[in-house]
């Protein structure tokens, strides 16, 4: 069997390693080679991990039991806000540019325990704050489909590494859409699990009630495999939930007759690019043709989602980023006269503009006199948004819509307008606010060939249904590589 990372799936690689057709070492060498060569153009990786990857591959090849692991030899990329012991883990920031992680995140440990091999750490918006990866302090990543466009963010490096055939899967993080939006822009599949489904231990925190770790891959099946491998309760993350992890891949094929899809009318209003609307509506029509029931649902508080998100997320960020003070790890300003000066100069030099902007906003909304009017109120609106979805789920199994209002925008296009950048998260933030599982799956392309993503949002811990619907979208619209409308 030749190693063509263009056509192999995670399951196929694991099967080939188990049967001896391929060795983990061969696959690893090919992933390292592909990462090195494709990344000249794409810039997805902040670093490659050849030493540890080769060592792990050799270990797997030398042991019959290890060769039979469910993800044996599968090459994966890890977003650089996720700790991998002994590697520089930078969060895309000068603040942590030299930080070496002292432990490995649970989600990564679990993938590795199932035989997956970490090939690289990928680029991101600094501290996961951004929707284009342009806020990285350490490098630029472009969209593999068009080098003048963004890959999306903040998990832009992970999405681009998967889309440019460097690896077969990746881990990203999603706080307001940071897995789903780059997945949509790069034409890959990206899932944000239910809050509490996958451990956040080892994820560098941005907003603790909104952060999620999740998988990206070129197919729904591969995402299902990666999710099953990484999910489950973790004593080191007290916000994980003790629920069994289903065989997501095993039950992926379901009869579309059993699906009830809810489309929020307010999501198809102005601001939605016509090409995105067309691909979405064509897909819904095909799903209906395949037997799914389509119903309109109402999300009455949708207009307040972005405002709610940016108050809560920035408030939590201002608290989480207070730890970067130059004392125990990370950058430290030199020759400070006293501790206070050290704090201020360390933070002022170490953080980029977007991070500072969000820290300031978050500090403001939590400050005396403003706490109730902003943060307190946003928490209440968050409850109303959750209730909107609960009401919708009384009628439908999943809510579907476009993942993003536009296809990938050009580099620099939104860099000067933070508010415009925030508004591009309009469809994704609600799933974080409500803690619901949500996936982006490619459903077509625009006239320039840029991918369009469709989002499926499900009930808490109903990743199974979300994956099944996404699998059906993949069937009717064609899987990777997605091309322009076929019908």
């Amino acid at each position, binding site marked *: 069997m030749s190693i063509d990372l263009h056509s192999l799936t995670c399951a196929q690689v694991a099967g080939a390693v188990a049967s001896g057709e391929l060795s983990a070492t061969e696959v690893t060498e090919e992933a390292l080679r592909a990462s090195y060569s494709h990344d000249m153009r794409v810039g997805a990786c902040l670093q490659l991990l050849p030493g540890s990857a080769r060592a792990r591959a050799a270990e797997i090849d030398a042991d019959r039991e290890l060769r039979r692991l469910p993800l044996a030899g599968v090459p994966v990329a890890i977003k650089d806000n996720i700790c991998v012991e002994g590697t520089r883990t930078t969060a895309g920031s000068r603040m942590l540019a*030299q*930080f*070496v992680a*002292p*432990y490995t995140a649970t989600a990564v440990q679990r993938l590795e325990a199932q035989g997956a091999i970490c090939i690289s750490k990928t680029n991101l918006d600094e501290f996961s704050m951004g929707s284009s990866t342009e806020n990285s302090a350490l490098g630029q990543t472009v969209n593999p489909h068009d080098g003048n466009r963004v890959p999306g963010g903040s998990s832009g490096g992970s999405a681009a590494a998967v889309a440019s055939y460097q690896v077969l899967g990746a881990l990203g993080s999603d706080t307001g859409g940071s897995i789903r939006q780059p997945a949509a822009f790069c034409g890959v599949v990206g899932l944000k699990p239910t*809050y*509490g489904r996958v451990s956040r231990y080892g994820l560098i925190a941005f907003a603790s*009630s909104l952060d999620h770790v999740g998988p990206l891959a070129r197919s729904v099946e591969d995402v299902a495999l990666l999710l099953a491998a990484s999910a489950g309760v973790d*004593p080191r993350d*007290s*916000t994980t*939930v003790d629920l069994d992890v289903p065989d997501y891949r095993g039950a992926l094929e379901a009869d579309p007759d059993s699906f009830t899809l809810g489309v929020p009318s307010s999501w198809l209003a102005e601001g939605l690019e016509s090409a995105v609307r067309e691909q979405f509506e064509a897909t819904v029509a095909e799903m209906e043709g395949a037997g799914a029931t389509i119903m309109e649902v109402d999300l009455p508080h949708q207009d*307040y989602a*972005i*405002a*709610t998100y*940016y*108050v809560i997320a920035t408030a939590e960020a*201002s608290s989480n980023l*207070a730890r970067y*003070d*130059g*004392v*125990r*790890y*990370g950058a*430290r300003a030199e020759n400070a*006269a*006293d*501790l*206070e*000066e*050290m*704090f*201020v*100069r360390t*933070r*002022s030099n170490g953080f980029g*503009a977007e991070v*500072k*902007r969000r*820290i*300031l*906003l978050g*500090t*403001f909304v939590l*400050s005396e006199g403003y706490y109730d009017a902003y943060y307190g*109120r946003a*928490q*209440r*609106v*968050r*409850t*109303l948004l959750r209730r909107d979805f609960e009401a919708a789920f009384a009628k439908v199994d999943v809510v579907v819509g476009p993942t993003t209002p536009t296809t990938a925008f050009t580099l620099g296009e939104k860099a000067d307008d*933070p*508010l415009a950048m925030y508004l591009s998260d309009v469809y994704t933030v609600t799933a974080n*606010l*409500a*803690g619901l599982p949500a996936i982006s799956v490619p459903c077509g392309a625009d006239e320039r060939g840029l991918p369009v993503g469709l989002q499926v949002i499900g009930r*808490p811990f109903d990743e199974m249904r979300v994956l099944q619907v996404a699998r059906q979208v993949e069937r009717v619209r064609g899987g990777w590589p997605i091309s322009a409308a076929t019908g």
Partner: protein
Amino acid sequence: MGVDSEVVDHVAALAKLRLEPREREDFVEQLGRILEYVEKLQEVDVGDVPPTKHVIDITNVDRRDEERPSLAREVSLANAPEVQQDHFAVPKVLPD
């Protein structure tokens, strides 16, 4: 909510950030626009709707109070900018 330099400076001080004049100008403008946008939350009738602090139904996850392995001292100090006698060393706390 009007945002002026004074507000931004006050908030920056709380966050232990010092802004360059150009930064301050930019942030006054940007934060002003963002807060203006966020004002729309005042339109919502929140009545006696409870706040969401956690999206999952767990409270007080405990574990037994037993000693377990944790990060070794050398590992904890490995990323420290300055170490003295197994402590994190920092500039003097009180200014002259």
